């Protein structure tokens, strides 16, 4: 990125507000990576807007020296839709959590995706309600004991990436708080996508759901349980990159690379919606013979953004009928005079 466009550094993004997340919260890392990446994106700081709903993650805008709005529970997506409708020049970042986006704000979330506003959605998934002190969320594992499920949660957990694809999201990716390098890469990809881009970020809540993603983030277990996908590359993972994924029909299977050539592996194609659907369904609870949990950009598609279509329609209608004249509008079609 050329430096002449940048008018700010990561430091310039720090506000005078004290960051009030719990010590050890995964949110700190995400904040740091966002502040690191933003100056590299060629944006003007004043054109950046962070909009959040309610929840721990939604405090995020207060810590970003950009324009920002900390709104109400679940509605950041709806507010951002309105903002983008009138201001397609802005870089709008939605900060939301699993409860905020998938529970109370589920409706706005899926509709934003289908409309494809050009926004970046950072979905901090910690599989718990943190701000309200530990109730199960729509991504909490079935059976998990939480404050509000002392005998185990009955709910079937959402698979956020699958939900996004189901809602026709044009960009779906996943990363984690504890892999800063990957997270920065994914943040950049999310920004670069023209359209509604969802980046699900596994984020550890060390107070109410500590270790929820441990097997994916800890050095000892990470390699065996995670799969980092790259466009055009075969799906390889494992302690010593010794395993791969092949597709048998529509079923993914783990193979040992001692017996299988990498040429036979599933090659990741971000534009393949069908394969993306299979990829995001690799959502097993980690075990010895389970499929690894994928990370990276699962799907990316170019399709018109809603705010641009709105502008085009205004232009089309204006070209057809001419710019609106208030006097003509007030007169209407049928007038008469009383003399």
């Amino acid at each position, binding site marked *: 990125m050329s430096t002449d466009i940048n008018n700010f550094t990561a430091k310039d993004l720090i506000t005078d507000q004290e960051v009030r997340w719990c010590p050890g919260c995964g949110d700190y890392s995400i904040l740091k990576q966002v502040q690191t990446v933003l100056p590299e994106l060629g944006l003007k700081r004043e*054109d950046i807007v962070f909009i959040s709903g309610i929840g721990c993650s939604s405090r995020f805008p207060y810590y970003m020296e950009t324009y920002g709005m900390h709104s109400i529970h679940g509605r950041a997506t709806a507010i951002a839709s309105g903002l983008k409708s009138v201001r397609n020049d802005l870089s709008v970042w939605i900060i939301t959590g699993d409860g905020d986006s998938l529970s109370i704000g589920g409706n706005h979330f899926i509709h934003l995706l289908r409309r494809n506003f050009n926004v970046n959605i950072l979905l901090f998934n910690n599989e718990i309600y943190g701000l309200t002190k530990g109730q199960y969320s729509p991504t909490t594992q079935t059976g998990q004991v939480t404050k509000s499920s002392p005998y185990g949660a009955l709910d079937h957990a959402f698979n956020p990436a699958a939900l996004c694809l189901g809602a026709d999201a044009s960009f779906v990716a996943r990363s984690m708080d504890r892999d800063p390098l990957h997270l920065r890469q994914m943040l950049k990809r999310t920004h670069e996508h023209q359209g509604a881009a969802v980046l699900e970020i596994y984020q550890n809540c060390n107070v109410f759901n500590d270790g929820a993603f441990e097997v994916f983030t800890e050095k000892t277990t990470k390699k065996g349980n995670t799969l980092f996908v790259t466009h055009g590359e075969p799906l390889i993972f494992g302690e010593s990159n010794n395993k791969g994924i092949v597709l048998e029909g529509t079923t993914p299977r783990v193979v040992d690379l001692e017996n299988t050539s990498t040429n036979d592996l599933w090659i990741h194609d971000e534009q393949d919606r069908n394969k993306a659907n299979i990829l995001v369904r690799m959502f097993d609870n980690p075990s010895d013979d389970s499929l690894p949990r994928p990370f990276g950009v699962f799907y990316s598609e170019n399709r018109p953004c809603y705010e641009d279509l709105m502008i085009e329609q205004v232009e089309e209608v204006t070209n057809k009928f001419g710019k609106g004249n*208030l006097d003509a509008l007030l007169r209407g079609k049928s007038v008469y005079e009383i003399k």
Partner: protein
Amino acid sequence: MNFSTEVKEDVTIMFAGDSGDGIQLTGAQFTDTTALFGNDISTFPNFPAEIRAPQGTVAGVSGFQLHFGSAKMNTPGDELDVLVVMNAAALKVNLKNLKKGGIIVANTDGFDPKNLKLAKYPEGVNPLKNGSLEGFKVYEIDVTKHTKSALQDSGLGTKEAERSKNMFVLGFIYWMYNRNLDNTIKFIEEKFKKRPDIIEANLKVLHAGFNFGETSEAVGTRYEVKPAPMPKGMYRGIMGNQATALGLIAAAEKSGLNLFYGTYPITPASDILHELSKFKNFGVKTYQAEDEIAAVCAAIGASFGGALGVTGSSGPGIALKTEAIGLALMLELPLVIVNVQRGGPSTGLPTKTEQADLLQAVYGRNGEAPVAVVAAKTPSNCFDMVFEACRLALEFMTPVMFLSDGYIANGAEPWRFPLANDLKAIPVSFAKEKNQGDKFMPYLRDEKLARPWAVPGVAGLEHRIGGIEKEDITGNISYDPDNHEKMVKTRAAKIAGIASYIPLQTIDQGAENADVLLLGWGGTYGALRNAVSELLAEGLSVAHAHLTYLNPFPKNLESLLRKHKYILIPELNNGQLVKIIRDKFLIDAQSLTKIQGLPFYTTDIKNAVYAILKKHSENLVCN
């Protein structure tokens, strides 16, 4: 033929029939022609609640009520002078509203055994034949037969031919009231310009209806309703929802902002969306959101971005928007909320009118959450008051609720429309620079207590706003007890301060110190005006003041009220404004309520006034 001609001051006609009978079109045509003639007019359509209710049934009756005359017409009329019915069901539904001695024009083909059965008349009973309509003037016309015979050589199929039968009725009524066919002829030629055969058929039938009046011996009287002495100028017809849409566009133009209308379909507010969505060439962006909450939130987002953010709905939708309205008042962003009230609670009476959302508008949010509230009193007044709502929202950086109702939203009247130049500009200034040394303080206020509107894109003004209590001036999160109290009081003072920037309350009719003051608000204006005119003519000491600013009230309201001995507050609810007036002023205002999904009739109001005067006659005589 020789006809007598009777001069009438005003006439109320109801066209009624099946929803497929073209009733609304017939009514609209008669309205246009009558307006052109120079009568004043007030109209109201009455649709069946079901979109495709079974033909011929009572549930499927569509009506169009029109009141026209040679004076100011304040309402669509209480009782009918003329009832035009295309079938038995239409008669059954509307007969109770017909004046004694009124005229019934009945399409006899709609009273065949099948239609009588569909209308649930007992076996063998035909109201046209059994003497039950004695006391009314009944003109029985086989409209279907006349229509068919007018079109026998047209080559049109029976079904297509029958579709023109509303034109026969229209032609006949035009004859009855001495009206010119030109406007309708022009309309038909325009509407069907791609189907010359349909134009010809409709015109033939229209003329046939007119000529039937001329030649038939059945009708001996024609009526003359002279033009009304209306103020000179250019007029058009306007419905309330249409006026609301135009008012929003005008406010956007006069403030130099782009209009963003976020909404979700709901009766009776959807027509505002339909209307606005046509005018993209004014830069209007309409956004049909996934739900009511998204609609208001998108409007807030648009407002944050520097557009004129507006959302519109009816009671149930407003309930859903409540939390977001609270957010907007905390963010102190401009937002206009249009509430076209309908009968409640819950789903209530979607197609019927009521004024039962006043308390919701003024008080209905969590926390201490004042917003400004204005209301329209007539269909065309929707234009003025929604324009005002936009002005207040922009000048005071606040949500403003604009109340309309199903009655004025669908009602229509002639409108002496303004010129764009006559509308006052709404000054808007976006923050451009830091306002406190080298810092930008998003909650530093001006003399109106409004905070600066700093939209994204301006370097140096980056700031964060949110729903958590803000620190005075900085806008940072604050849980400080004193600060919270100060902010609550400041937000209240800002809304209260609007009183200095709105017109003083005036008396609409009557003396400034009358015995009884009728204090109304919103869509009951016409009915109150009629009642008070009549009471004044009877020599009674009454007056009428009508509120369009409901929060805050005009500054002089209390002193104005105190000049009258008795205050009567008629409302289409269970008594809401009366609560606020009593609360604010400790005035013993009395309540007149009607909660039937219907407007007030003149007699409802007059009787209430008589009762007060009778009860207090001794006091009044003493004075």
